[in-house]
């Protein structure tokens, strides 16, 4: 039965080995244009040889929101004369995958790591290890426990974000009736903070609006689409949906735009202009909110560069320049980008992200 098989087998395996190495080699020559290989000074943070090699680690790759952030990061890094590489897990909500990339950044001895956390504690020890090795850790978009990073770039306060969405949806449904929330992953730090705030805001200022359901689309287009269908089915009196995630709101809008509920069930949340333009123009969505992720990424990169250069350390009250704007570090080593922005059919064409 084993006659002759294995000699051929060995040859085939050798070919396999060679081809996989070629694959790896081919990719490495293409992708390794700017890793930290060029012998930058070791961990000691001598300001003379500021190590402006950075790693950008979003929650996952292929997410338009983070791709837009990365544009801002790239522009800022270029402005300060550094290099940056984007890495990350393929699917969202994978803290274990992020840990692996953080460890890799530590090994590469990059100057700074800019990260949006998939889990506020699961990646903590890896980040602490990175900091010990001299890497400046700047979180943005989704924070970790404060002791695990040097600085957090906050896109907006949770109160501000929750309030703007509650304001939009309650005014659209006439301040009474049932609404539901279509969120991302059940464990996403920022999503849950916003949902809590929205509940408080609703209870405090909108007693006639009832939040009947919170469903999770896991930042997956198809899941979010299906969950939207499910919401409409299980809550026939639903008047509004809030989706505080860019993937969720776009999927929900796509569902609504071709359903009977179009124009009857209001939809708002956090979206990007390019994804929502079509649905704002066809009347599915009247208004939605967001900050500018490109500015957020740029701010994170400027802050990281300022830390690497030793201009700031993360103390409250320190100031640094991001492009032509000056920012001040607040409590808990946090920098606030600004107020959320409302997009509607009058202004959406001024934006391209």
């Amino acid at each position, binding site marked *: 039965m*084993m*006659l*002759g*098989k*294995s*000699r*051929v*087998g*060995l040859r*085939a*395996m*050798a070919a*396999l*080995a060679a*081809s*996989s*190495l070629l*694959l*790896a*080699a081919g*990719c*490495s020559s293409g*992708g*390794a244009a*700017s*890793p930290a*290989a060029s012998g930058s000074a070791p961990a000691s943070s001598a300001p003379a040889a500021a190590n402006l090699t950075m*790693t950008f680690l979003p929650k996952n*790759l*292929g997410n338009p929101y983070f791709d837009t952030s990365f544009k801002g990061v790239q522009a800022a890094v270029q402005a300060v004369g550094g290099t940056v*590489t*984007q*890495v*990350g*897990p*393929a*699917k969202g*909500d*994978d*803290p*274990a*995958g992020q*840990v*692996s*990339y953080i*460890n*890799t950044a530590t*090994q*590469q001895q990059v100057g700074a790591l800019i990260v949006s956390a998939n*889990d506020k*504690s*699961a*990646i*903590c*020890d890896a980040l602490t290890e990175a900091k010990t090795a001299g890497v400046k850790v700047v979180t943005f978009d989704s924070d970790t426990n404060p002791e695990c990073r040097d600085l957090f770039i906050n896109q907006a306060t949770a109160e501000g974000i929750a309030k703007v969405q509650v304001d939009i949806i309650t005014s659209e449904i006439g301040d009474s009736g049932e609404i539901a929330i279509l969120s991302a*992953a*059940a*464990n996403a730090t920022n999503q*849950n903070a916003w949902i809590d705030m929205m509940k408080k805001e609703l209870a405090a200022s909108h007693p006639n609006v009832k939040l009947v359901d919170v469903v999770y689309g896991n930042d997956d287009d198809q899941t979010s689409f299906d969950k939207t269908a499910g919401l409409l089915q299980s809550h026939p009196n639903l008047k509004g949906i809030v989706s505080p995630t860019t993937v969720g709101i776009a999927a929900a809008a796509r569902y609504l735009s071709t359903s009977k509920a179009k124009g009857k069930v209001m939809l708002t949340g956090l979206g990007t202009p390019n994804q929502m333009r079509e649905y704002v123009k066809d009347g599915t969505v009247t208004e939605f909110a967001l900050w500018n992720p490109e500015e957020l990424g740029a701010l994170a990169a400027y802050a990281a560069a300022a830390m690497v250069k030793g201009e700031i350390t993360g103390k409250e009250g320190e100031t640094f320049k991001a492009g032509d704007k000056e920012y001040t570090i607040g409590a808990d080593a946090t920098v606030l980008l600004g107020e959320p922005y409302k997009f509607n059919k009058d202004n959406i064409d001024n934006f391209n992200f």
Partner: protein
Amino acid sequence: MTTLTTGSPDTRTYAEFGRPLWRRALFNREMAIIALLLAVVVAASVMVPKFATPVTLGYLLFDVTPILLIALAMAPVMITGDIDLSVGSMVGLSSVTLGLGTQMGLSVPVAGLIALLVGALGGLVNGLLVTRIGLPALAVTIGTLALYRGIAVGLLGTTAITQFDRWWTTLVKSKIGGSGIPTVMIVFVLLLAAFAIMLHFTPFGRGVFSIGLSKDAAVFSGVDAERTRLVLFVLSGLMAALAGIYYALYYNSARGDNATGMELQVIAAVVLGGVSVFGGRGALHGVVAGVLLIGVLSKALQLVNITSDVVSIITGVLLVLSVIAGSVLSWIQAKRLRPAAPPVKTS
């Protein structure tokens, strides 16, 4: 063919048809994967900056430990021709159990023991449905994949438990001296030895292979096929639960969605390591090499900043090629053997 008469000059012994032992031990699929692994390690050490360091070894082994643990039990399950798709969900359920247990004030060992019991119970449910009711393992474990994940997410809701006894998390993250090898590898090596002895050096293990080759033949030759399969499912649940305990302590986070999709990483590595998806063939050294090969490739590619989608493409291509190679070889072998089946000249 001449008639088979003992003593006739044409009589050949099995040994003449086979190859010498050293060749059988060296030239097989497992050794080919090990050779490929070594080749990739050497290539990565030469081409990838900062790859050849003890730090890499540590990070790499920490990353693959849960997959290694589950693969130990997945391999025999697949060798019998079954499959267990519920292991990733069991990792989540076990880590949630550990988290809830410690939150209620139990010590890590006690909560861990409960998590292991949950794992064994989950495996038992799979095994009973497959062996007593006679449902296909694929269908049963697709069901329990959803079921166990649902229970895990249901138990913890949207929260994550991150308060574990520091002594235990430190222990799990510790390394043996300055070698860079994680301490948990000691546990893995002991389990590897136990599984290797069970699978390759006991009547039980021979039963596992014979079930995979032909269940009826195995039953006729006295193998208790149903019991064997049941035991393997329980072991699979246990190992997944152990991986869940490791996962929760290493990442210091018990969440319902821990290790989502890990079952596919495990099965990919097991198949790459030479276990036949149709059952009946495979060996643990190949499986371990398969897991490490995927781990080394992704670590090396990460170090040169190649993104995870490319890593997935490469592992996918590798897996498909290895399966194709296997089938093509059996086909070639069948063609070669058909005409006369002469003894192979030992050169």
